[in-house]
């Protein structure tokens, strides 16, 4: 079959490759430069002062960054977990329960945080928490309030990811389980849950990385003593270039790249195993 796309001529083929290469250079060169300059002995981005691990050595003693990282990780793990739980419930509600009072309103509220500027979300949550605190003396601004903000934003993202997987599922599988006498909770844990695990993992990773990276909501909701790592990086970056930021960036990029690679290999393997099991089961039947 001969398909006539713009890839037809050699010129177009070359142009296509060049465009892809250019696009990837655009996407990757800034990050690579950032990483290279973390090994620069000089403080200046304009001057290569020789290879040095000085900034990494300084990083090890940088308690502000290390405490920030620790706090960020705690918030990210807990808020991602909470987001996936709440987001799955919201997604389940939107996909399985087509009729209940206020469904449209609910669906609007689930999706609204995705289009709402984060500055507004941070501001609104801050004003409410301040109002509550004035009345009952709780919550003090700090880790808990940042966590609340991340959970609120993360929930919507998790809901969207899980929702798209739930809509793909064949409802007959759940119906069959119910016909065979499974209770709703059993249907969920034994049938639905294994089928959406992959999307739950992606939702968790997405909300985790959103939380780990968040500046705006965290800035609105943080209090004295609760400075997450992005807030530390942001305040330094605001003042100008800082090689310590390059060093942190390099560490983070390497860790994230490894995690994403491991996760995608793991997911692909799980998927293959599942496909093999399904085809094996189909063979046994016939």
């Amino acid at each position, binding site marked *: 079959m001969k398909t006539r796309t713009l890839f037809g001529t050699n010129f177009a083929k070359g142009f296509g*490759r060049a465009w892809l290469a250019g696009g990837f250079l655009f*996407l990757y060169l800034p*990050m690579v430069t*950032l990483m290279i300059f973390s090994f620069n002995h000089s403080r200046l981005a304009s001057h290569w002062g020789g290879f040095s691990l000085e900034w990494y050595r300084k990083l090890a003693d940088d308690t502000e960054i290390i405490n920030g990282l620790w706090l960020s990780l705690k918030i990210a793990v807990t808020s991602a977990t909470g987001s996936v739980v709440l987001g799955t419930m919201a997604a389940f509600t939107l996909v399985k*329960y087509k009729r209940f009072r*206020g469904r449209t309103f609910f669906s609007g509220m689930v999706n609204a945080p995705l289009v709402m*500027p984060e*500055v*507004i979300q941070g501001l609104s949550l801050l004003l409410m928490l301040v109002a509550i605190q004035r009345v009952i003396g709780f919550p003090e601004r700090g880790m808990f309030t940042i966590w609340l903000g991340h959970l609120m934003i993360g929930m919507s993202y998790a809901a969207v990811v899980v929702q798209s997987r739930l809509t793909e599922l064949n409802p007959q599988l759940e119906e069959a389980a119910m016909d065979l006498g499974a209770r709703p909770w059993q249907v969920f844990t034994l049938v639905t849950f294994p089928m959406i695990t992959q999307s739950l993992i992606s939702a968790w990773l997405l909300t985790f990385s959103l939380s780990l990276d968040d500046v705006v909501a965290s800035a609105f909701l943080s209090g004295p003593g609760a400075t997450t790592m992005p807030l530390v*990086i942001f305040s330094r970056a605001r003042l100008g270039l800082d090689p310590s930021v390059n060093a942190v960036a390099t560490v983070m990029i390497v860790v994230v790249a490894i995690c994403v690679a491991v996760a995608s290999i793991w997911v692909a393997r799980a998927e293959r195993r599942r496909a093999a099991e399904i085809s094996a089961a189909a063979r046994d039947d016939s």
Partner: protein
Amino acid sequence: MESSKSSRWKPSWWRGRTAVIGIPYAWLLLFFLAPFLIVAKYSVSEMGAIMVEDVAHVVDGAVKLSIKFSNYVFIATDRLYFHSYMASIKYAFFTTVFCLVIGYPFAYFMARAKASLQPTLLMLVMLPFWTSFLLRVYAWKGLLDEGGWVANLIVWLHFDRVLLAIGVIEAQGQLMHTSFSLVIGMTYTYLPFMILPLYANLSKMDLRLLEAASDLGATPWVAFWRVTVPLSFAGIIAGSMLVFIPCVGEYVTPELLGGPTTLMIGRVIWDENFSNNDPPMASTVAVVLVLLIVVPLAIFNKYQAEAQEKRK
């Protein structure tokens, strides 16, 4: 509950259903809707000497409402706010256009690349998406600051004269803290958002349509413009929305890469709250932003999605 077989699981099903709907519902009411209503309330109040004056007072045992629209009047009359709203739309628009110009051919060639290569290409587009947004913006600071290699390259190519001529930088060789650095930074960070929906759309396209077009005498170029582009319209809209919406309210990029001349509305809200210590004014700016930009965009987005569903 276990006694009669017919009602064996119905009650617990009901309770389960109520919890599954009720918990996220209550959560959203409490942490999404209520805060926004508080912002709306703040927007019609004023700063007192040290505290925000409450909208509702109890005077002689009766609740007295004092709703003040002075903030709204101020926004409508002070040019600064109008300019910031317009600047937000302008920069978001140009970012979207640049993402589309770079991203459409990119997604197109990706979708037409060898099938065995596509998962790797997709992974390479996704990877920057997983790395920190903040650090990706920061990376451009090093590139465009005086002496950064991209800045040097631009100056060496005399491209800065072009940029100066079209008015996106203010002085030759001065690339940081300008409209130019701001739009480059936003284009860079949001490009994957444009590529992914376009790729999803273009890779699903039925190539037999192109064959049909060519059988009917269309050159590949004509077929591209009259078949491929119209068919990928949904992807174009989806990608543009994914770029435009977050760009309008962007704060981090304008703060790190923008300058005094590129005041966007996200920064105005931030400054009103933190620097001017005026939450009511910040709230008013936020309410106006939601009503004038976010709500129309959300409605357009929903309408588009529904139209797309129907076409299927």
